[in-house]
């Protein structure tokens, strides 16, 4: 029989599921920490959790990059996403009078704007490399043309509609001379760009469904979708009658989940590559 028996195959299938369970559990614990913090400590807890999850995302993406050789397409993509999250953590540390107790000076504002700008540029660049991956393989995307167009149109409409109000607000602030508002405008435009890239990443994951390489793309698409939902959740505060704690609570949960999904995307890619190094045992 020509039936391959890969001893690693079962482990590879179980690994991403275990990673997802761990990510969900950690997200819940960290969210409860944020939800239950009160008074001045609340800001410290929120900032600490944000820095922690950005660094975890950076570590996971770095693990993904380390699975490849220099010059490999996806090493560059994972490396960029890792650096984007380091910049996000740095930007969070530069919030005045929070974790580092920095004064609210124009120097701090410019540094924070630079970190925000860097994180957005690197994040879009890295996600774009993932979106281009399928095109580089030269394989056809499965599924009907109508289905692919429907997914593309739906995600494009969401990608453009959700960040648009923020973008207009940030541009107004930037025109008023606020450097951080200028960086936020770039950030909102970057959000729209990343959301536009969800469709090709999601379709790549779907094309590889059943294989170990489906997981990193699936987790990455889910991470981007969490950022999209996070942007959308900020509108909850405008709904009449909505409790004031609802929008921050959902924001905290989605931010942590988005970062941890990125972390496990990198780890699952590393696992998928490692599994290919093991010999395939065949029965005679």
């Amino acid at each position: 029989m020509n039936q391959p028996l890969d001893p690693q195959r079962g482990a590879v299938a179980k690994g991403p599921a275990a990673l997802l369970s761990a990510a969900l559990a950690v997200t819940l614990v960290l969210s409860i920490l944020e939800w239950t913090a009160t008074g001045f400590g609340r800001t410290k807890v929120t900032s600490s959790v944000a820095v922690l999850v950005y660094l975890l995302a950076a570590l996971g993406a770095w693990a993904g990059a380390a699975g490849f050789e220099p010059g490999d397409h996806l090493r560059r993509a994972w490396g960029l996403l890792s650096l984007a999250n380091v910049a996000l953590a740095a930007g969070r540390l530069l919030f005045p009078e929070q974790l580092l107790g920095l004064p609210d000076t124009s120097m701090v504002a410019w540094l924070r704007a630079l970190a925000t700008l860097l994180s957005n540029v690197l994040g879009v660049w890295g996600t774009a490399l993932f979106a281009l991956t399928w095109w580089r393989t030269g394989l056809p995307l499965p599924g009907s043309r109508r289905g692919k167009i429907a997914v593309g149109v739906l995600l494009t409409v969401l990608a453009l509609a959700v960040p648009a109000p923020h973008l207009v607000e940030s541009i107004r602030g930037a025109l008023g001379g606020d450097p951080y508002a200028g960086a936020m405008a770039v950030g909102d435009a970057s959000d729209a760009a990343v959301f536009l890239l969800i469709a090709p990443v999601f379709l790549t994951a779907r094309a590889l469904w059943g294989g170990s390489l489906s997981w990193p793309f699936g987790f990455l698409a889910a991470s981007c979708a969490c950022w999209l939902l996070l942007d959308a959740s900020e509108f909850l505060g405008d709904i009449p009658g909505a409790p004031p704690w609802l929008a921050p609570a959902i924001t905290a949960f989605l931010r942590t989940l988005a970062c941890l999904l990125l972390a496990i995307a990198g780890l699952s890619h590393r696992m998928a590559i490692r599994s290919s190094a093991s010999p395939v045992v065949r029965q005679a």
Partner: protein
Amino acid sequence: MSTALASPVEIIATDLTPYLGPNMARVAARMCAERATGRSDGTLTPGEVERALGMLRPMLRTLLGRARTDVVLLQLTQHLVRP
């Protein structure tokens, strides 16, 4: 019990399934065979195997990286030579 030997395209698809999933592994195997031979019957002669595996290299290198691609293609070559 006698069993029919799998064709080279089936062996390629089977070996790629853990990474690409069953559907895409089949598509990739058929496509590399077609590109290597110019035929669409999904067959490969022993002389065409090396060329067909070469067609897989860019796709695998993108998804798995250069080093792991070499390992996967080496395993595939071994399986195709002695299925």
